[in-house]
């Protein structure tokens, strides 16, 4: 019986190689440009509105469904014009956007300046409850459509104005020289009029202008994307379509991949990292993604934030053997971090290995000395908080604690502190209830060094969970944003980053890779810097 099954699969494989349309693998035997690829998916947490999609599962769909002014190159991460013909400014505050002609949505409606302006106005308006609304905060008039308290006093952003079908202007409320490079983010995608006319209908079967259109959507189980044959862009689908199949668990998806029931997975479960090379061989993908993991300190807690404690924080950083943990726990799917950005930025984009200096290098003796000089661990015991419900955080938190304990020669110096749910974890962080360092992961919104620094460490910034505040850092970030060109901006951001190296408000742990795998049926599977598969480039056979 098992032999027979194996023989049958071998025959199927041969048939597939011969480019014959066979009935193997449950009718998915077609090859070439019309064949459909199945890929793992998780239930998106929000309705599929672009300005409401803030997690990777919804992001996968939008990457196939919509194209905006810019797109991040799947390999380099560079922001490249797609619908934008040009975006010009003279003062880094007033921008004029000119669209390329010939783009339509898959329902035939042309993509015009209005498609963008309406979509952005929708995303910014408070009563639409779009979770990405803050992405529009740099546009003039944001505080009217999205006040901190009370009802909005305007329905549209005063900084947006349509000039003609292919032109609109944007006025920002501050200088922001790299603003155009943020426009590849999902929140800035255009929307057809049907989105506003028949909202429920659009959500049931979204319509966009990307290389794929939605064929059918069985909520909670499968979303069938099919190639849109009249797609005008330069990156059309090289397969017939993608079936995004909802999996309850990454382990399950991986098992299905092994059994040949699923073509592409984009997350290898921690439990299989040790086997994946033998299971998949060259069909295992492990490449850098724009994600950095850190341990943030509650700087609002005087026991951690008081002057002099930077010695203890730096000492703890030096007590962590990053090399060993990334090797033994993560099987090289993480890379030890030596700055606060990500390798996907590239050196030109601001990633500077070693910027952290000796503070990010494992040195037990020096670590002991620094911690002692700084007055020791507050309260004698270090707890590292993490949420227990997602990710396999326990394994690495325990490993980090063991590394610190071994350095200090005290088995009880550091323990993990699991918090039951992510919601509870976030609430404790928001309520400033953390009493020790806590897990902090940052996935970039767009590949700019600004995105790794400003939201996280600028005084009172939206994701500054540790409430770090340093006037010098803030001043350098302001200068960088106003800098006339990218090179100078990057240099200023790196100067700001050096302040982090001295103050150590968060310990950089490692850069996270995107990991994935695929079956022999498909080829050309890669991940983009956001660790999302580049679906349109996948070929079959």
């Amino acid at each position: 019986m098992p032999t027979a099954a194996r023989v049958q699969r071998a025959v199927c494989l041969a048939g597939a190689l011969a480019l014959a349309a066979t009935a193997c693998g449950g009718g998915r035997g077609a090859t070439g440009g019309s064949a459909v690829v199945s890929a793992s998916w998780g239930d998106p947490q929000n309705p599929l509105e672009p300005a409401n999609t803030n997690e990777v599962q919804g992001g996968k769909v939008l990457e196939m469904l919509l194209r905006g002014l810019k797109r991040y190159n799947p390999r380099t991460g560079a922001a490249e014009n797609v619908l934008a013909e040009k975006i010009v400014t003279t003062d880094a505050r007033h921008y004029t956007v000119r669209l390329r002609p010939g783009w339509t949505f898959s329902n035939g409606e042309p993509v015009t300046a209005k498609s963008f302006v309406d979509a952005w106005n929708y995303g910014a308006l408070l009563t639409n409850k779009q979770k990405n609304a803050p992405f529009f905060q740099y546009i003039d008039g944001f505080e009217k459509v999205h006040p901190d308290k009370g009802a909005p006093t305007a329905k549209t952003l005063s900084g947006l104005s349509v000039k003609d079908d292919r032109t609109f202007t944007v006025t920002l409320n501050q200088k922001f020289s790299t603003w155009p490079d943020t426009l590849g983010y999902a929140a800035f995608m255009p929307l057809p009029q049907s989105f506003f006319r028949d909202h429920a209908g659009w959500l049931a079967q979204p319509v966009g202008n990307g290389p794929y259109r939605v064929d059918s959507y069985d909520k909670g189980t499968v979303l069938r994307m099919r190639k849109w044959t009249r797609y005008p862009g330069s990156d059309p689908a090289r397969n017939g379509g993608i079936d995004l199949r909802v999996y309850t668990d990454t382990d399950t998806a991986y098992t299905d991949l092994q059994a040949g029931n699923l073509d592409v997975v984009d997350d290898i479960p921690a439990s299989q990292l040790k086997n994946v090379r033998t299971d998949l061989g060259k069909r295992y993908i492990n490449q850098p993604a724009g994600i950095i993991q850190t341990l943030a300190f509650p700087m609002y807690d005087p026991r951690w934030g008081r002057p002099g404690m930077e010695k203890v924080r730096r000492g703890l950083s030096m007590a962590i053997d990053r090399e060993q943990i990334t090797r033994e726990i993560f099987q090289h799917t993480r890379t030890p971090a030596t700055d606060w950005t990500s390798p996907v930025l590239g050196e030109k984009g601001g990633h500077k290995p070693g910027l952290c200096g000796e503070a990010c290098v494992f040195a037990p003796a020096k670590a002991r000395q620094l911690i002692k000089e700084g007055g020791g661990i507050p309260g004698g015991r270090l707890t590292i908080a993490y949420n227990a419900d997602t990710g396999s955080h326990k394994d690495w938190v325990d490993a980090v604690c063991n590394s610190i304990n071994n350095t200090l020669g005290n088995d009880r110096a550091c323990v993990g502190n699991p918090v039951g749910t992510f919601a509870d974890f976030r609430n404790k962080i928001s309520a400033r209830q953390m009493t020790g360092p806590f897990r902090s992961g940052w996935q970039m919104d767009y590949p700019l060094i600004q995105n790794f620094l400003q939201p996280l460490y600028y005084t009172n910034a939206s994701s500054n969970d540790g409430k770090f505040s340093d006037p010098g850092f803030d001043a350098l970030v302001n200068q960088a944003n106003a800098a006339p060109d990218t090179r100078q901006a990057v240099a200023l951001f790196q100067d700001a980053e050096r302040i982090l190296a001295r103050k150590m408000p968060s310990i950089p742990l490692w850069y996270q890779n995107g990991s994935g795998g695929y079956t022999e049926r498909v080829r050309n599977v890669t991940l983009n810097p956001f660790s999302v598969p580049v679906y349109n480039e996948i070929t079959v056979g």
Partner: protein
Amino acid sequence: MGRYVIRRLLQMIPVFIGSTFLIFLMVYALGDPVAAMFGERAPDPATAAQIRHDLYLDQPLWKQYPHYMGQIFQGNFGIAFNGRPVTELMAAAFPVTLRLTLIAVVIEMVVGIALGVFSGLRRGRSIDTTVLVLTLIVVSVPTFVSGYLLQFVFGVKLEWAAPTVAFETPLNEMLLPGLVLALVSLAYVTRLTRTSIAENARADYIRTAVAKGLPRRRVITRHLLRNSLIPVVTFIGTDIGALMGGAIVTERIFNIHGVGFQLYQGILRQNSPTVVGFVTILVLVFLIANLLVDLLYAVLDPRIRYA
């Protein structure tokens, strides 16, 4: 009898109110769910406030609960956080889980009672020891491991079974998950049957039946088994609800989008409409299962009567 059933059905009303309130309170006690909707990013306060307002979360508990119950009586079980109505989730999840549970219960009954009868009649023999060892394995190896191993061996290596269940949940693909789900309960059913059988095998009426010269088969099925089943039936009755709500691990391993999975998501995202809605239905299932068990007592043991 009829009055007894009606009384039991009426008792469902206070249980319904009590359990919905308890669950509502518990989800409430978990804290504010809105922050988690924004991922690792700190929520925008204005948007978060707007979401709280729309979900009625900005009200005190004593207003939230009546508001929720009022909606339920209009057939509105609320909205899950991904924008789908809870009734839609329930309509999709309950039939799947019900099927899975029925398969598990059938396996428990057939395999569990059979093994229990054999080991109970042959105490101390090799079959009894084998069953004991299997019991120990099932109890001490987590479902996650046994489920994963069965899936890997039968689904990936041998290719005897589909490793995951298709969305249409065909019956043949549900057998393996049904077995995994039944494993732990199987241990209980087997041991309970074994004990009852061993105990009753010495009862006077069995000696009488044997002395009368009745065929062994008939003695075992009509006299011995029937009188040994009450603890087993009780256990299975309590187990139905537990299987339906507690299949979280099994459903995850085999990619079944059932009650356990939805409940798990609902709890982790602290979405009270999802959790309260699902648990309410589960409690009703309990009540009905227990009622049926109580009625079965009278069938199995005619001396038991209900007024």
